[in-house]
């Protein structure tokens, strides 16, 4: 990383402080993610080796293999699929905080729209990171208070009907967010192409090859990026006629 910042340090001072942002977020992003990884494994390892609840190799391996068969594609596909939407800094936040498509991305787009930051700019990236910090704050506090402290009590209190309604949170979030994503796109062609790719994934790919559902979203996103770039409007102007620096 030092070589990269040195090679570009000939440009103006603002670039330097933006590089500082990249440096800090990637260094701390990786560090905190490694720490999170270690702590999240420490709990089960303590049970198995500290308290001696070792179930034996056979179920451990068998469980891991069955899970890897189901989720193995997600492990590789998700970080790659979400990277173009999140960028480097926010990827380290997202894969530790979780609920990316239904919470963190909506937060990020809303923040970008609220301050008029254009996608692809540094301002948009900083807005996304800041919005995810805000989302993380709400999430951590609500988990600690409503699950950690009051969880057992609330479980006996909340009527089933409320829980049932909240079961529809995913479509309830995706509808509005798709509208936002439409407004945030900077070329009309991108909107048409990307929507067609998403629809093709659901109505063609998954319909005729049901087993593709584990990687279909990655295929849609990749196809949308490739086609939008290949067929982009090269006359130089985006919808908002904003030239990026």
């Amino acid at each position, binding site marked *: 990383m030092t070589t990269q910042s040195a090679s570009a340090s000939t440009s103006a001072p603002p670039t330097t402080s*933006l590089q500082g942002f990249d440096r800090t977020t990637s260094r701390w992003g990786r560090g905190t993610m490694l720490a999170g990884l270690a702590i999240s494994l420490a709990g089960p390892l303590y049970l198995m080796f500290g308290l001696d609840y070792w179930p034996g190799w056979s179920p451990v391996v068998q469980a891991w293999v069955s899970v890897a068969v189901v989720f193995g594609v997600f492990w590789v596909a998700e970080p790659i699929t979400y990277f173009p939407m999140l960028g480097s800094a926010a990827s380290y936040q997202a894969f530790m905080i979780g609920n990316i498509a239904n919470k963190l991305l909506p937060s990020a787009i809303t923040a970008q729209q609220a301050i008029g930051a254009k996608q692809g700019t540094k301002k948009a990236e900083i807005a996304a990171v800041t919005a995810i910090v805000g989302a993380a704050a709400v999430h951590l506090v609500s988990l600690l208070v409503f699950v950690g402290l009051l969880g057992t009590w609330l479980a006996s209190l909340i009527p089933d009907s409320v829980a049932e*309604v909240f079961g529809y949170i995913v479509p309830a979030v995706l509808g509005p967010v798709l509208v936002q994503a439409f407004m945030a796109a900077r070329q009309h062609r991108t909107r048409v192409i990307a929507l067609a790719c998403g629809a093709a994934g659901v109505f063609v790919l998954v319909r005729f090859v049901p087993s593709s559902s584990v990687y279909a979203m990655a295929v849609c996103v990749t196809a949308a990026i490739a086609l939008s770039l290949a067929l982009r409007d090269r006359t130089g102007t985006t919808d908002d006629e904003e030239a990026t620096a």
Partner: protein
Amino acid sequence: MNTPSVTNSPVLWIAALGVFAVIAVQSIVYFRAAKRAAPAADMTDSELKTAFRAGAVSAIGPSLAVVLVAITLLTVFGTPVVLVRIGLIGSAGFETVTAQTAAQSAGVELGSTGYDNATFALVFFTMSVAGAAWMVSTLIFVPLLSRADRRIRKLNPAVMTIVPGAAMIAGFSYLGLTEVRKSGVHLAAFLTGALVMMLLQVAAVRLRRTWLKEWSVGISVAAALGAAAIAL
């Protein structure tokens, strides 16, 4: 429902709070880095605050939904494991499938009489190792992808103005269309949310009220859930 005694072990509580602490530290470091870099990206202090607030407000609905799912799983996994696995890192869907798969490989059903401390250890271990795989692949791929990203930006900056929009529209339309096919209630929630969002966007521009944009996800999600409640 049989809950293994070790699910509320103090060590598991410490590990759970440890993950919370790590995310809190990351958030603080990131926020300070954003604040420092903001002026160079033409971002004012008040815009930074707006971004934070917009992110926080938008997260209320989804966070409450996670809380509700988490609460229902407390008796299966105990509070500390639910906090880390369901609340953070993972998602309710993935983790429940993983847990069932793990329990079955030991020939046990979750919550049944055979669901003892050793089975719980196996379940928790499998969930954690599966979750760790996401982090490992993030740690491997993000540095590679950001190197490619930097090179592309240098060659043709216009490319990066197209990529995020294309990726998000394709991703959200894929996920959204998958949801609306599930039932009429899903469809009602999706359409109501989308419609209210459109109205709010128009209103924000017409009335020149930026706070409407800030609250747009919160308001439209509430409306969409209201529609789901009526349609149920």
